[in-house]
């Protein structure tokens, strides 16, 4: 049943892709049809995932079709199904959203390829999380990369986009090369010749320690590049903004999560049991990415880049949870390991939802104003009256404000970090607690970052003409985003429902079912996990909040029945308010630039032009740049080095036939002297 649905959905994606190509003349129609196909297909895959997760079943798809030496085979176990669920729900929304968003391109650019690649992109992600064979995995993994690369450079006239695309595909390719090596090493210990994951599951754990460690690091880098961990994040904040928004929505929302999938597969299935220090490494990497990611997001003015950096941060959080889970597992504290895993997976799906929501709304803003610079916006809440609240929901939930979904996963993260002190080693205890501090700081910075993002771009007065003439976007665009907003609220209020699904994954990966001990009704109780007892019921908190609001409001109206508001302009020390007086994004985060000056290395120059005699300032120009330390101190030198070397080598081809003959001659002589004997 499920497998048929899955195959059907894959086929539907494929047909959608092809149909997109078929329509030469009527771009609009072709675009529409392909996207509708994508939506239907994702409905099918959603059903697949739901069916499989409802009973935690595992389905194998073995095609008798030969690829060079091996057969195509796929595996739909709870882990895959969970990721399928996340991916295809986002795909569904994104497909609908694109119907509106792609109107930006219709009859301006070739939307046939957009539709084609888009479908391909969505299906490739599905295949990545289901492939059960190293060769097939490599193929679909790279397919995903390439298709997304083409989507990134969709607007290839802009050199910046091309640069982003290059950096993206080059880094991604290096990553997959490392993954290939990892597969080869494991494969060398397997012996059989179908590069099946099942063999890796059997053999991986029993590999010699050295090889295990090598594979461990290869996998960190290989998937880490995709996950955008620091300092391998370079491509992410370039590529995500470069892509069309409906694409970057999916990239940020789910594509980078496939790396997490890879981590789970490798560290919990292939290579387990792992030594504790692996988990610690992962934990530290996650913490670093989380903190640095949000710090860079904080000072960003381009809204899409900001969101991209915040994706790095959220991935960091998820990776923290994975690392914790690994540590717990290696100390055989399975229940806690499962708790951390729940935190990670929960945050994964949360981030998928609200990040897509945010990107979508950013897309709406771009659609309406054709600018992505926050400092050019402002006052949109009056002009885009539906997009604004949706964006607000996204912002609230990404800053983990109760009662929205971000808070629940944040709560889980804290709880699992707090349980770190059950671990034997003191060092690891302290590391976990410091990670807790990092997460706390991150949370606060996220709030700041998104207060800025929402406040500056949506509130107060429009700063430019773009913003002034903004109109609300087509219906599909905010309806689809509305779905996501509803999801945010739902997943915030009824966490237990999500827990049930996550639980299947846990029971599959870790072989323990802790959900009943975690939750009764939808109060999450953590009594049994440890003596550490606490409860959380966002729903009831919300309900009481409403009640109290009602009481307050009632009391106030009792006190003054005829309450009225007078509207008057803002007091700005006597002069009439102008947009120029408003606080800008730059100004808003100025204190942080000073506090974290060591990281940002801000380069500021203020130049004033005076009137003569120089009593009055005629004009002030103020430039403030954050210097990208990773490009400056790591990537730049490396690439330069390689280029220098190759430049030095190129003199070999002097063009003189005598030299060429000499090469052959010397080769021959050397051979017959040293080898021929």
């Amino acid at each position, binding site marked *: 049943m499920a497998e048929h649905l899955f195959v059907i959905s894959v086929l539907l994606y494929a047909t959608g892709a092809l149909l997109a190509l078929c329509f030469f003349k009527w771009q609009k129609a072709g675009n529409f049809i392909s996207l509708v196909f994508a939506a239907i297909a994702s409905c099918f895959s959603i059903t697949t995932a739901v069916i499989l997760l409802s009973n935690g079943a595992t389905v194998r798809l073995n095609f008798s079709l030969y690829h060079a030496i091996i057969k195509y085979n796929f595996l739909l176990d709870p882990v895959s199904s969970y990721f399928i669920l996340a991916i295809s729900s986002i795909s569904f929304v994104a497909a609908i959203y694109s119907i509106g968003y792609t109107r930006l391109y219709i009859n301006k650019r070739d939307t046939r390829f957009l539709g084609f690649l888009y479908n391909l992109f969505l299906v490739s992600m599905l295949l990545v999380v289901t492939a059960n064979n190293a060769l097939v995995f490599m193929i679909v993994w790279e397919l995903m990369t390439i298709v997304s690369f083409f989507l990134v450079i969709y607007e290839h006239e802009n050199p910046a986009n091309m640069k982003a695309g290059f950096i993206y595909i080059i880094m991604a390719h290096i990553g997959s090369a490392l993954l290939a090596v990892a597969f080869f090493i494991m494969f060398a210990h397997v012996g059989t010749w179908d590069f099946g994951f099942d063999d890796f599951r059997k053999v991986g754990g029993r590999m010699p320690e050295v090889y295990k460690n090598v594979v461990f690091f290869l996998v960190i880098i290989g998937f880490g590049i995709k996950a955008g961990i620091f300092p391998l994040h370079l491509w992410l904040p370039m590529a995500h903004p470069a892509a069309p928004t409906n694409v970057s929505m999916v990239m940020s929302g789910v594509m980078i999560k496939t790396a997490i999938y890879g981590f789970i597969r490798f560290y919990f299935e292939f290579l387990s049991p792992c030594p504790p220090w692996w988990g610690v490494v992962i934990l530290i990497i996650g913490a670093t990415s989380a903190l640095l990611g949000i710090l860079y997001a904080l000072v960003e003015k381009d809204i899409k880049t900001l969101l991209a950096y915040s994706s790095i941060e959220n991935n960091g959080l998820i990776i923290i949870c994975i690392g914790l889970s690994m540590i717990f597992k290696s100390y055989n504290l399975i229940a806690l390991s499962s708790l951390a895993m729940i935190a990670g997976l929960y945050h994964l799906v949360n981030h998928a939802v609200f990040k897509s929501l945010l990107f979508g709304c950013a897309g709406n803003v771009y659609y309406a104003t054709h600018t992505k610079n926050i400092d050019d916006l402002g006052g949109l*809440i009056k002009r885009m009256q539906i997009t604004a609240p949706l964006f*607000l929901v996204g912002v609230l939930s990404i*800053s*983990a*404000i*109760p009662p929205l979904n971000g*808070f629940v996963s*944040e*709560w889980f993260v804290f*709880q699992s970090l707090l349980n770190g002190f059950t671990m034997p080693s*003191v060092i690891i*205890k*302290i590391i976990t*607690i410091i990670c*807790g*501090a990092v997460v*706390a700081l991150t*949370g*606060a910075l996220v*709030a*700041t970052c998104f*207060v800025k993002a*929402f*406040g500056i771009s949506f*509130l*107060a*007065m429009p700063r430019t003409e773009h913003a002034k003439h903004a109109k609300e976007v087509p219906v599909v665009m905010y309806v689809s985003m509305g779905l996501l907003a509803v999801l945010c609220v739902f997943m915030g209020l009824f966490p237990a429902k999500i827990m049930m699904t996550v639980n299947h994954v846990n029971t599959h990966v870790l072989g323990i079912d802790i959900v009943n001990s975690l939750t009764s009704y939808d*109060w999450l109780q953590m009594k049994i996990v*440890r*003596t*550490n*007892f*606490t*409860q959380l*019921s966002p729903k*009831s*908190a919300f309900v*009481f*909040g409403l009640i*109290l609001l009602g009481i*307050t*409001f009632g009391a106030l109206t009792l006190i*003054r029945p005829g*309450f*009225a*508001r*007078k*509207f008057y*302009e*803002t*007091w700005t020390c006597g002069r009439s*308010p102008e947009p120029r*007086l*408003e*606080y800008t994004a730059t*100004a*808003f985060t*100025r*204190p942080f630039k000073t*506090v974290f000056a060591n990281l940002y290395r801000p380069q500021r120059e203020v130049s004033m032009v005076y009137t003569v005699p120089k009593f009055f300032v005629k004009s002030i120009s103020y430039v403030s740049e954050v210097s990208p330390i990773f490009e400056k101190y790591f990537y730049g030198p490396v690439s330069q080095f390689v280029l220098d070397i190759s430049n030095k080598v190129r003199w070999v081809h002097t063009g003189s036939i005598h030299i060429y003959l000499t090469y052959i001659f010397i080769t021959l002589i050397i051979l017959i002297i040293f080898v021929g004997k």
Partner: protein
Amino acid sequence: MTSNIILPILQLIVIVGFSPLVKGFINKIEARLQSRRGASIFQPYYNLVKLLQKDAVVSETSSWIFRATPYVTFVSILIISLIVPVLSVKVPLNFTGDIILIIYLFALARFFLVLSSLDTGSAFGGMGGSREMMVSSMAEPAMILSLFAVALTADSTNLSNITNTLLNDSILLLNPSLLLAFAALGVVIIAEAGRIPVDNPYTHLELTMIHEGMLLEFSGRYLALAEWASSMKLLVLLTILVNIFLPWGIADGLAFSGLIIAFALYVVKIGFFAFVIVIVEMSFAKLRLFRIPNLLGTAFILSILAIISLYVVR
């Protein structure tokens, strides 16, 4: 059954009712120590009553966010006040959440305040907002860590359990980690409540103000709610401090006598801490804005030490 009715009301009365009084008390003492007569201790109440009876003037650039903010702030503090144990270890909304929820409810209030400050489009508001965010984001790790130190000691992140545990074997209170946590939390509370040396609640000078800058555009009912919320915040924070670190005398049931004693002791403790705050405000000048991180950093270090020492002691 009755408990479910009585206790919430009781707590609301205490927090909502007495928070202006605390503010008035602090002002009064401060005036006395500055050898002024100072306003009456009930002055805050008069202000609130007056403001509540007025209409409001709203900036025309602002949006519904601006108008929603006071309610959101007020209500979120109200919820918190129902989650923290005040007079009894039994807490009405115990099942809804724990310290993490509390921290993030504070975040909710702050979030909307800052949004509203940006909403008016005046530079003052933005300035206040950005500074507020900076201070809070510095304060939050320290706060969470110090609370975690407590939570780890009491094996729970749930305030009523924490209080309960610490009440039953007070020997736990005598370990160094709790003292460190206490110190850290004290600093954090001063920062969160916007008192000197972090913020100056008395002025509207753009150089010094943080919290007041955000309230600048509020008027009438909105201003009343905002002010009230801030004073409630102070009281709630003090209550948390009190009931964690000096839980003695807090009623462990709903027995009337117990509650009376608990209330008496509660007043004494709060009064004491209010006095401490006054002393601090008297003896320090307001810090420069970019010195504040150092102060909070110290608090952060203290809280880390608290947890590490916890491990060492165990």
